[in-house]
């Protein structure tokens, strides 16, 4: 117990100490979080009327970001699986980073769902026993379970490993491997459940597709590792933490294959919607070409597709992918492309046209954008803290002093 207290104290020490750039970075994030909190206060005071949402488009930027971030969280499994189970040493250094990313992404997910609620003060109604939990009927109830469960797994495993490394001991595999094994299935689960949340609604033909789940996985396993590649490149440049080239190359391969599969699925969706368009293709027509003179999402989706194709193109050629500059560029483009594709390109057009064919467009309001930026800043803040604490322990710089 005393060791654990010292562990927390040392962790706090390494989190608060840093060079000038580190403090500027954390200060900026704090300022953005405060701005987001202020915007959220306005939303609490006046109601969701201050967002761009309406009875017609009743989910917007918040739920879009939630959906995207579930994918980022799930992508941590792409690092965990080879390292712990296939005993692939190359990815070992990246695993803790991936799990840290999962934790940050999950906290952001929960934050996005909370700010989207009309009555966040009544969120306790969701707690089983205390409230009324409509499980197994509601996919949202499933989502609450899988997200919180995944968060628990991804907090406890790295904590356990770090705590042992902190004491200079080797963690016991029999303790953490079962957790790792569960987390692998769980990661696929969180994204499938999130996809089912939309796919289970016949009222919205645009989402009511059996391809939605697999497509969520493909896009998640390309956007997630793409972000991890960017972060690892950054870490190995600015810290002493050694990440071998092979780690990045392996991750790049995962990203590439997933991005290619994602494109194939996109083509198959486009074919189905446009080869013989039915009434159910209206949302896709609106998204890609505009409908009845309304075309708010057209620039979004075409930029997403262009970025996606360019990035996948770069990744596909080995010579380009093996140069880290090109790789970083492709990862950046891919990340943005999939963020658009899952938000403005999936959640919003699901509501347009409305149930009776009416086209009401959606643009996020300033309050919505500020809250969103605030939550992203919070995620970056949490992730930075976790990494800042984990790296010195892994490097052996911070150890328990008896």
């Amino acid at each position, binding site marked *: 117990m005393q060791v654990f207290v010292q562990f927390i104290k040392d962790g706090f020490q390494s989190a608060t100490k840093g060079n000038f750039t580190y403090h500027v970075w954390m200060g900026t994030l704090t300022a953005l979080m405060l701005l987001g909190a202020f915007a959220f206060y*306005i939303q609490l*005071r*006046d*109601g*969701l*009327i*201050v967002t761009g*949402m*309406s*009875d017609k488009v*009743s*989910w917007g930027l918040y739920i879009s970001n939630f959906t995207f971030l579930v994918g980022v969280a799930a992508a941590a499994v792409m690092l965990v699986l080879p390292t712990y189970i296939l005993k692939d040493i190359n990815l070992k250094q990246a695993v803790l980073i991936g799990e840290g990313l999962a934790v940050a992404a999950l906290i952001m997910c929960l934050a996005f*769902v909370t700010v*989207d*609620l*009309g*009555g*966040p*003060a*009544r*969120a306790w*109604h*969701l707690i089983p026993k205390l*409230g*009324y*939990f*409509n499980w197994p*009927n*509601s*996919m*949202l*109830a499933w989502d*609450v379970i899988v997200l919180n469960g995944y968060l628990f797994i991804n907090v406890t495993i790295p904590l356990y490993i770090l705590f042992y490394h902190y004491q200079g001991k080797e963690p016991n595999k029999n303790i953490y491997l079962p957790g790792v094994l569960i987390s692998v299935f769980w990661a696929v689960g969180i994204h499938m459940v999130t996809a089912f*949340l939309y796919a*289970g*609604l*016949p*009222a*919205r033909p645009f989402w009511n597709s059996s391809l939605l789940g697999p497509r969520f996985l493909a896009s998640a396993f390309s956007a997630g590792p793409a972000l991890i590649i960017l972060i690892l490149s950054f870490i190995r440049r600015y810290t002493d933490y050694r990440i071998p080239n092979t780690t990045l190359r392996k991750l790049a391969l995962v990203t590439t294959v997933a991005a290619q599969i994602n494109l194939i699925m996109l083509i198959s969706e486009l074919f189905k919607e446009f080869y013989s368009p039915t009434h159910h293709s*209206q949302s896709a027509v609106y998204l890609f070409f505009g409908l009845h003179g309304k075309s708010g999402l057209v620039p979004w989706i075409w930029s997403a597709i262009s970025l996606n194709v360019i990035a996948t193109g770069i990744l596909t050629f080995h010579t380009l992918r093996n140069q880290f500059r090109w790789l970083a560029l492709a990862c950046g483009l891919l990340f943005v492309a999939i963020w658009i594709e899952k938000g403005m390109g999936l959640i919003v057009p*699901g*509501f347009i*046209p*409305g*149930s*009776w*064919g*009416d086209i009401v467009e959606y643009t996020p*309001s*300033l*309050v919505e954008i500020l809250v969103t930026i605030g939550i992203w800043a919070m995620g970056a803040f949490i992730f930075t803290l976790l990494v800042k604490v984990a790296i010195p322990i892994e490097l052996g710089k911070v150890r328990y002093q008896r």
Partner: protein
Amino acid sequence: MLFDLFFKTRKPVEEDLPQTEGGCGSGSCGCKKKKEPAPVEPDGYDMKMGKTMNRRAAFRQLTAGLLAGAGMVQSCSITADKEKREEGQLKWEEYFKKNYRLMSDEEKSKTVERLERLYEINTGKTINVSTNGAVENVLYGYAFNISKCQGYMDCVNACVKENNQDRSSQMQYIRIHEMENGQLNFDDADDNYFHEVPAEGHFYLGTQCYHCENPPCVKVCPVGATWKEDDGIVVVDYDWCIGCRYCQAACPYDGRRFNWQTPEVPEEEVNHTQHYLGNRLRKKGVMEKCTFCIQRSRSGKNPACVEACPTGARIFGNILDPNSEIRWVLENKKVFRLKEDLGTEPKFWYYMD
């Protein structure tokens, strides 16, 4: 621009709100959404249940509490102070109450007492909130005669008044779609018309909550705040809803309305005869919808829309009663329902003469 947007998000001042729906007379003149500002008493603003306190009021309450606690205030009106404390206590108890379906009869009557008392404290007026349950062997159904509807919108106005719907956002449960003869196509229909009706070469079709036998909205609610009653009415527990809007995404018929802001109904326009699952006043951030006027239908009356319709296009009744008018329509007319392929089994039929 930043400043502008923030300004826009501010709560409107009292003078601007609320506006009332100008009811248009029946007969040949039928215009939609004629607005005229109505004189508003200040307490019209404060009357609603889950009212949000402004900063000044909160500060006043806080300081009053502190001063009173320190024993420094003697002149302060004791009754007003007592009411404030009672209000706080009632709101506290309301916050922790259960889902309506899990309440015992005693708990139900307790919450009703609290709601009625809260309204009295806030407005000095009394309301009557019923918790009448479903009557045995009753299953409500609705039929809409497309040949008869002329698009007068009297149903819409009656519905707004009966069900205490938010006047500031002009919330309406019913939508009347004006369609061109020769097709039943919602894409080309106009549900926002503003001209004399009936328009030449057009017919009118109303949509609202269909009270499906297999309601997709009920299935998806994560907290069970919406359900189908034994008489087939799909209801919402306004105090249990957390405002996630999943039900709104799941409804294929645009049957649900969300309170994006604190709803406003001037006190003198409030319908005081209320039902817990029906037209009692809502708060911001919760879902609501047509309840077949549960406060009326369970007392043996027709919903307000049926009663208000000047053409007789709307038929409501118990489909389990072989002698009811609705049964006669279902048995003798060629009826159909919308989006039947979704398997929702609406209890809302359309027919023609």
